[in-house]
């Protein structure tokens, strides 16, 4: 196996894995902060119980998100050193700023939030979780700015003397047009993910027989607040995703042609919901198509022209010369793996739409305090947390695989990015060790989440009466 392939597998596995925890962190921190604020405003116990219940699940999730994030920062240098040399001047800056602005904020204020229940005034305590959430947004902004630069490099010049890309406009990097639409798309998807997590779990508690009748209204509120967040965020995801498709058609036309497997240029191009047959365009056995939809997604008009893969391939060859990456993984020059881009694009959209539909159904079914009992709805609610979660994964696989063979679009190929001095054995060791470790952690994490989900929102204990003499001997409100 080629070290580039192994390094790509490691990047894919570790990044998709890391990004299972990230959107839950972003979305759930906002929802938990909302619940704590609701408790402060209303003084009603149920909000505090929800804060603590989902707060615990948040922390179990956050722990793995943090530690797998360290790998993300290290592996650029470890496996992709030529990439790091080439782009460090531009790509490194948002990464460093992310650390300084976001990671310190998240980790410090989360520590205060976890351990500070009895040490901080209630308002300050709630402010801590809001600051954690703001930290996650900063983090998302800077890392997405770095990724958007890879999708659409701007604000730099190639310096032939040093052989490196050099930044001359940081604002252009931060406000890249790809970034301006990617950030809302990703963050709103994260809100969908966090909300789906809350809705699925709370719905199960609200409808199961073992739940004390007094607790049902509390879970109902969690279900309805979560479903409302999911729907509103889902609308935003659809709008931003639509805009993103049009921008992508402009900056990376091959990615959008590959999303449909469109080989010949067409005006009024159809969008197929699914295709059975071969995606190399030679024979199509069966397809369900919506006329003109691809043209609409790509250009905003049902009769807009969408360039096909074959024409784009010729165009790219004229612009960039022979594709040096094509020899080792892609059957055609400058063409991503079509079956991968085709299916991941559909599954992403499909799962997102399905999640929104389930959330709408739940909102209708639970109106005016109703407790729905349909089996199908229960199954849909239980599946709900996985829908946006995996939609995120498929979306990223589409975005990253669709950019291939480039690591920095039009500037540097993935094959040129890999560390020349690292041996196949080393990369393979790293891939195997991290994959096994991540597998074990996933097993432990899921079991722990399920245990705490089953336990439900615990009853509140009145605080131990303060010792009139001193409070020195009172146990900590929270301890590891």
């Amino acid at each position: 196996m080629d070290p580039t392939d192994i390094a790509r597998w490691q990047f894919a596995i570790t990044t998709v894995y890391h990004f299972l925890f990230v959107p839950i962190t972003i979305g759930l921190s906002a929802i938990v902060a909302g619940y704590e604020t609701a408790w402060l405003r209303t003084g009603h116990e149920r909000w505090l119980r929800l804060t603590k219940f989902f707060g615990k699940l948040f922390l179990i999730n956050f722990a793995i998100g943090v530690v797998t994030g360290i790998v993300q920062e290290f592996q650029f240098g470890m496996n992709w050193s030529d990439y790091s040399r080439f782009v460090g001047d531009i790509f490194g800056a948002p990464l460093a700023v992310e650390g300084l602005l976001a990671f310190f904020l998240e980790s410090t204020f989360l520590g205060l939030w976890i351990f500070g229940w009895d040490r901080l005034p209630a308002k300050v305590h709630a402010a801590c979780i809001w600051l954690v959430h703001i930290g996650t947004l900063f983090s998302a902004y800077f890392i997405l700015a770095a990724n958007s630069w890879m999708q659409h490099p701007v604000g730099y010049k190639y310096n032939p003397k040093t052989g490196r890309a050099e930044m001359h406009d940081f604002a252009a990097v931060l406000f890249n047009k790809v970034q301006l639409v990617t950030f809302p798309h990703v963050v709103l998807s994260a809100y969908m993910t966090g909300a789906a997590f809350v809705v699925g779990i709370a719905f199960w508690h609200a409808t199961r027989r073992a739940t004390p009748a007094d607790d049902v209204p509390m879970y109902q509120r969690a279900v309805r607040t979560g479903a409302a967040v999911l729907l509103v965020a889902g609308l935003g995801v659809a709008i931003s995703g639509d805009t993103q498709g049009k921008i992508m058609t402009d900056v990376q036309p091959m990615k959008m042609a590959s999303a449909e497997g469109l080989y010949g240029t067409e005006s009024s191009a159809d969008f197929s919901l699914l295709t059975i047959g071969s995606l190399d365009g030679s024979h199509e056995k069966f397809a369900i198509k919506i006329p003109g939809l691809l043209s609409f997604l790509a250009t905003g008009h049902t009769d807009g022209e969408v360039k096909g893969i074959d024409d784009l391939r010729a165009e790219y060859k004229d612009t960039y010369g022979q594709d040096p990456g094509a020899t080792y993984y892609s059957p055609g020059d400058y063409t991503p793996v079509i079956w991968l881009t085709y299916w991941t694009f559909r599954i992403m959209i499909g799962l997102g739409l399905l999640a929104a539909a389930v959330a709408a159904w739940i909102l209708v079914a639970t109106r005016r305090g109703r407790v729905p009992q349909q089996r199908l709805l229960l199954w849909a609610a239980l599946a709900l947390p996985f829908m946006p979660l995996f939609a995120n994964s498929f979306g990223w696989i589409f975005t990253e695989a669709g950019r291939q063979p480039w690591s920095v679009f039009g500037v540097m190929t993935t094959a040129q990015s890999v560390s020349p001095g690292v041996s196949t054995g080393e990369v393979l060791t790293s891939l195997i060790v991290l994959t096994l470790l991540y597998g074990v952690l996933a097993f432990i994490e899921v079991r722990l989440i399920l245990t705490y989900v089953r336990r439900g929102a615990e009853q509140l204990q009145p605080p131990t009466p303060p010792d009139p003499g001193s409070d020195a001997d009172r146990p900590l409100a929270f301890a590891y």
Partner: protein
Amino acid sequence: MELTTVWFTLIAVLWIGYFCLEGFDFGVGMLLPILAKDDTERRVMINTIGPVWDGNEVWLLVAGGATFAAFPEWYATLFSGFYLPLLLILVALIIRGVAFEYRAKHDDVTWRRNWDLAIIVGSFVPAILWGVAFGNILRGVPIDPDLEYTGGFFNLLNPYSLLGGVMTLLLFLTHGAIFISLKTDGPIREAARSLAVRVGVGAAVAAVVFLLWTQIHTGDVASGVAFVLAALALVGGLAAVLVGREGWAFIGTFAAIALGVAGLFLALFPDVMPTSLADGVSLTTSNASATHYTLTIMTVVAVIFTPVVLAYQAWTYWVFRKRIAVEHIPATVGAPSTIPAG
């Protein structure tokens, strides 16, 4: 001062912050099986660093990110060159970080034992390997004219660098023991104090030999001054333990680590990663650096936000300033759902 020098200094400051802060929480993790007699005492120890260890670790992430941005060639050569040690450090930091959060989440003896082991191993491995890594950076490693490291793994295991690993190990153990004595009460505080002195003597010996070796090999006047001050701070810190002044003792080991690391960076400057090959090329602050434009942007960001970060991190230590003793550890595992007093 040139911007490349400014960023060399800032990266030194980030590593100083990292070693001074995570140094003691590595120490606490390593001392878990030595200082604690039972589960409650282990929990006392873990809870002294519970609210802060993650923030301490961010210093490493920012040091890494800042190196990537300010000296891309350094980041690329270092991270691809020291591949396997960094992989080990990653695995250690992963299991250790998860262990702190998960250990208390399930009331089962085997579960806790396993996570204790993860904390102990996850603290030992980086405590040693960071010293080995810095030893190798100072000593010089094979870097060819393409700026690629060509030395392989076993080249990293040489007496000087291994001594560096022993030094960081013993220093972090001492620093951790003093932190425990400062943050706890009861028998564990006494045990930590007496252990700090015994390990501290070993740390002082290792540090003096390693720093002297460094000074002879690559030192200049400035690094020599820093090393002497570091040694004095360490001796002062240990003396403060003996007379029961734990706060001063902690300041002593904190300053010793800070001055020691500062001296190492002074000895390194203006190289950032010297080559050991006759026909190789050393990475320096000028040939490894990012452009003036990027460094300017980063300087503005750092000047504005570093004081803010320092302020809120210091505030955290203030909020959690109280000593923890066995009687403060709640009987229940995890978070008891009490109604907050506020």
